[in-house]
């Protein structure tokens, strides 16, 4: 349930507005948006696994939850760094594919948003991990959809002032509207 709702209904891009910057910046071609989506899903799943114990075993028992923001951002930044080094050593082809997208993820708000939302909603460990994986998949779906539309859009005759960000945002709005259709699916 949580799995599908995070992909379709509470999609991070269309519902929580998280990760809009990479969503608009990197959705020009399908293949690069697919790499970005993979990288985000990967880091999100890891973040979910790492932040839950930190939050529930260290921050809450010692009443340090006001340090949540600082702790999460440091964890995410170092996690991204670690993942980057790890992938570089173990799988050069994957590193090539993800390339510059990995460091960019540090400031991607959907990762931070995931950690905060999971803490806010008091998910248990399993729920947090499922939430992380499915939110990542939802992001991938959103960005690939967008890239597919934008590749077609290059051929269309768009009014001058709407070119670039304007039309992309309007298209996103219409897709978000379409995604509302899913909200009746799970009650």
């Amino acid at each position, binding site marked *: 349930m949580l799995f599908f709702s995070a992909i379709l209904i509470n999609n991070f891009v269309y519902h929580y507005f998280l990760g809009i*910057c990479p969503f608009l910046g990197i959705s020009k071609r399908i293949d690069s948006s697919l790499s970005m989506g993979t990288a985000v899903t990967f880091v999100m799943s890891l973040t979910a696994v790492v932040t839950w114990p930190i939050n529930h075993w260290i921050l809450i028992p010692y009443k340090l939850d*006001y340090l949540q923001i600082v702790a999460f951002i440091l964890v995410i930044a170092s996690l991204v760094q670690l993942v980057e080094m790890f992938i570089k050593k173990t799988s050069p082809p994957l590193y090539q594919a993800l390339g510059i997208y990995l460091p960019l993820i540090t400031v991607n*708000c959907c990762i931070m948003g995931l950690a905060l*939302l999971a803490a806010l909603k008091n998910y248990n460990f399993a729920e947090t991990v499922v939430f992380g994986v499915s939110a990542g998949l939802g992001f991938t779906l959103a960005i690939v959809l967008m890239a597919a539309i934008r590749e077609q859009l290059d051929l269309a005759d768009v009014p001058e002032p709407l070119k670039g960000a*304007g039309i992309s945002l*309007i298209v996103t709005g219409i897709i*978000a509207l379409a995604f*509302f259709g899913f909200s009746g699916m799970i009650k």
Partner: protein
Amino acid sequence: MPNRSFLQDFNKGLWQENPVSRQLLGMCSTLAITNALINGVAMGLAVSFVLIFSSLLVSLLRKIIPNQVRIASYIVVIATFVTMADRFLAASFPAISKSLGPYVPLIVVNCIILGRAEAFASKNTVGRSLVDALGMCLGYILALLILSSIREILGSGTWLGYRVLGTWFEPWIIMILPPGAFITLGLLIAFANQIERKIKLRR
């Protein structure tokens, strides 16, 4: 860059490099919290607080922070101020803090702030960084005000909670939902581009 005046540093945030309509930074918070004017104001002030103080501190520390760890240091500085803003809102305005939800802590990853720290405050004097931060804040607040006014008036028929359109008005629910945010911002950016083009043509 010594021949730029302070006024230019200030003005560019308002229009030429407006963080929302020109640089497309800080989109997440911009879109998420502009469903009512009061939220837009609160968010604008919170971001301003963080931006001004972190610019100040980063610019003060710019000669001390080693180059290799600068991004991490900026993030810690920003996170500290965000925590302060978050705690303050939660203590003084619990209702607003609740309706803003996770978006106040998310100011940490708002690209406006890190972007300014990296692109301006780390290379300029304290005074200039402060002026630059003020200009950016005003530009950001202005964009939030316009966006949230449009969405609140059309989406619930009210402005700052007061009814401005008569009872005959059927609210466009869509405006306060996510799709309304995307579409309104898209049109606003197109509008800003159009004005920019007109100005260029006249020259």
